[in-house]
């Protein structure tokens, strides 16, 4: 299960991970909930290669604003703490696999 981050824990977690993916989501966002099982499967498949995190935008509006998020779900990929890619909206598993795999 992806670890939930907040504004206190965010920077430390991201900088510690070689590659990480952060799922910006909210409870009321249906496409976010559709993405959930996809992310869970990807997490199982990519275990040890990439760290999975989540940020609830309702609880962390500062983080959403910091990354200019205006639509969810949005996935941010970080490499050694730096954002390298942003994936907006629901995607199929195969598509996500190929998008993410270029950073591993």
């Amino acid at each position, binding site marked *: 299960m992806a670890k939930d981050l907040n504004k206190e824990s965010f920077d430390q977690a991201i900088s510690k991970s070689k590659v990480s993916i952060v799922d910006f989501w909210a409870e009321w966002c249906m496409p976010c909930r559709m993405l959930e099982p996809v992310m869970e499967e990807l997490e199982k498949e990519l275990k040890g290669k990439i760290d999975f995190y989540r940020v609830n935008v309702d609880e962390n509006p500062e983080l959403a604003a910091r990354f200019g998020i205006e*639509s969810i779900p949005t996935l941010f990929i970080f490499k050694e703490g730096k954002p390298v890619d942003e994936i907006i909206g629901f995607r199929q598993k195969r598509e996500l696999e190929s998008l993410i795999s270029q950073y591993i």
Partner: protein
Amino acid sequence: MEGESHKANQNNEIEKLIIIGGGPAAYTAAIYGIRSGLNPLIFAGYEHGGQLLLTTYVEDFPSYPSILGPDLMKKMEDHVVKLGGRIVYKDVEKVDLSSYPFKVSCEGKDYFSYSLIIATGAKPRWLGLPNEQRLIGKGVSNCAVCDGFFFKGKKVAVVGGGDTAMEDASYLANLASEVYLIHRRDTFRAVEYRQEKVKSNPKIKIIYNSVVTDVLGNEKVEGIKIKNLITGEEKDLEVQGLFVAIGHDPNTALFKGQLEMDNNGYIITTEFTKTSKEGVFAAGDVVDKKYRQAIVAAGWGAMAALDAREYLSNKKLN
């Protein structure tokens, strides 16, 4: 875990009926299919729930004076599960209708079936402007209930004249400081009560006979360019959000070249649900370019399942 809930037939046994889709048409087809003893396998996809997931309140589905779209879909899904329906929450990648039984491929596995119901629905259409595509998720959206949250106190525009556009404008008026509703004609397609809700809302400003010709802004939406189709006059509107609700395109890419379709990709059927391929039936928004209602899609689903039953029984495959 949802993905595990389905049990495929043992030893690659050939299915009687495979249903592809995860909206009202597919789930109703499943209910009728199960009760007809066809034990269908349902590929609902990762996006199961369909377009109703992107809505708020549905107030025209009989027996529910007011219900949230996602709740309505959950109830339909529960109904299928309660009857013992086998639902796969994964995406079909390939369908081969050239051999019989038909072949359906999903994440590296092949499934075979004597009949098929296609109920893959439709997806929202974009305007097709380069700057619109560039700014998706940066102020451009097709899901007001998903993204409205980010536009509290800001100015937004909604484009379209149908039910979705009205619902989006009304929903956004609760959050945004001002909502422009832009429509290319001088009348709306939406049902009356939704139109009234929009017209009587002081926060919604309707701009008729106009189209969006460009989306402005570098990193984020800062405005839109609109053109009045009667006067030809162009002007810029300062908005931070643009919600596109101009209609839908059918999800029929899987069947291209295998089934007869019209120019817009809608599957052509005869005698209600029969496609150009015997044994393949279509239901809901993949066929219906006119009504596009949950209840209509559900009706199509029932018809398709009954037609599949009849087909299988004529072939003595039931």
